[in-house]
């Protein structure tokens, strides 16, 4: 078995008296689709923010290969972040820029290419996602699905080794959700990156994931393949997968 791309050990985070992460252990495998699932407000997004260095834990370890990042400073994180990208829930596109400028922004900010080449690469990325015609549009002119695709184009332009998705299908209709699922699959095929998807979309997790980790009560309750999740007899896992209101989790969402 290959070594995990990202390893989290005994991660703790409290907000006041609320224990949000209470000893998380998780392995995220390279070049695979890793899903992190759990209830809303269960700490998935907090874990994600720790994984990209937007939050610092109270204690615990986050390993990128052989680099421990939990106690690292901004400089070390900047070096790691150059190899990762995050697709935010609402895209987090820059309102002050056009679609093309948004997609080319990571190249521009890191001075990876000249203006003409940045435009060419941004156009090519948009073309891959069938959004070439939106190049000169303002981001406010885009639909929710288009925003996700533009954000994905921006995330992919630096060819990251690890790509994080924060609730990629939340707020989208079933058709758009399916399109986003397709995008996740396509991303793995094209980019060969390690994909980490934080979601409460169970059907997507069971269909797309190579590995799933379920967070419950601030800890990882179960980690395994979709088949292992389907076979699980754990009442919490069962309730989460079936979406029944009655059960040990109480009301879902």
């Amino acid at each position, binding site marked *: 078995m290959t070594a995990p791309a990202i390893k989290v050990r005994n991660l703790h985070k409290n907000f006041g008296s609320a224990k949000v992460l209470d000893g998380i252990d998780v392995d995220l495998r390279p070049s695979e689709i890793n899903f992190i699932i759990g209830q809303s407000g269960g700490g998935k997004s907090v874990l994600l923010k720790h994984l*990209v*260095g*937007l939050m610092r834990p109270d204690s615990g370890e986050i390993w990128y290969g052989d680099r421990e990042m939990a106690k690292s400073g901004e400089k070390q994180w*900047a*070096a790691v*972040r*150059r190899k*990762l*990208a*995050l697709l*935010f*829930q*609402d895209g*987090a*596109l*820059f*309102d002050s820029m056009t679609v093309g400028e948004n997609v080319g*922004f*990571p190249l521009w*900010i*890191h*001075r990876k290419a000249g203006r003409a080449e940045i435009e060419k690469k941004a156009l090519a990325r948009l073309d891959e996602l069938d959004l070439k015609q939106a190049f000169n549009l303002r981001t406010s002119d885009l639909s929710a699905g288009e925003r996700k695709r533009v954000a994905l184009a921006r995330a992919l332009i630096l060819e990251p080794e690890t790509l994080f998705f924060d609730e990629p299908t939340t707020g989208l209709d079933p058709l758009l959700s399916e399109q986003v699922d397709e995008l996740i699959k396509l991303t793995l095929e094209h980019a060969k990156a390690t994909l980490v998807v934080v979601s409460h979309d169970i059907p997507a997790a069971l269909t797309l994931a190579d590995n799933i980790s379920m967070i419950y009560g601030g800890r990882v309750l179960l980690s395994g393949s979709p088949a292992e999740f389907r076979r699980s007899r754990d009442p919490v896992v069962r309730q989460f997968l079936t979406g029944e209101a009655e059960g040990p989790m109480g009301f879902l969402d």
Partner: protein
Amino acid sequence: MPSEPSGLLALIAKIGAATLETLYHLGNYSILVFKAILGAFVPPWRLRGVFRQMEVVGADSIFVVILTGFFTGAVFTLQVIYGFRMFSAESLVGPTVALGMCRELGPVLTALMVTGRVGSSMAAELGAMRVTEQIDALTVMAADPVKYLISPRIIAGLIMLPLLTAVSDFTGILGGYIIAVAKGVDPGQFIARIQDNVVLSDIFNGLIKSGAFGVILSSVGCYMGFYTKGGAEGVGRSTTKAVVISYVSILVSDFIMTAIMF
């Protein structure tokens, strides 16, 4: 569990909490401004961003600054003429208006006007970027958001406020001149007395003060926006705080600088 303090203890606890919060924000603000200033000196330099902000702070504010300067000079002259006539000292109207504009009214009123127009918009813009995760997106792209967003705004404030103040000084004196002449003051005497009584340091010290005001209004606006919490409501709160804190800071720092300089 300890019980909640009451009476005098509650008051002391409130004062203590407010003091701690103020010190926390002062510390955080100082770190942010230090990082932003440092960011301005460390390559890569993004001159386009600085020029864009100079346009927003300077060129886009010029009309309101001209209006404010002109009418301030004009109304100041009206009041001064009224007082000076009592002592037959109309010949001193010119230098009084010029000194008032260059040393005090030009720098302070320009800073207050630009705070209302630009400081608030900086807070709102950065606040909106914060709540829509655009600042987080910059961080995850390994782009330093302080260097990219705040440094150009502070540089623009530092450079453009003295230029706007110079415009305000000029239009204020012009407004004063027009009113003075209309009220019967000799135009040649108005200008000659300014030349006799206003020295370069009066103008330069005013411009130095305005540079400091530019840094204050832009950095406070950026700080409030950058650390916005709580969605659209939070953006509104940050904008209001940015304006109020900038106004108070400008007036307090004006007093301190004036006491030191003049």
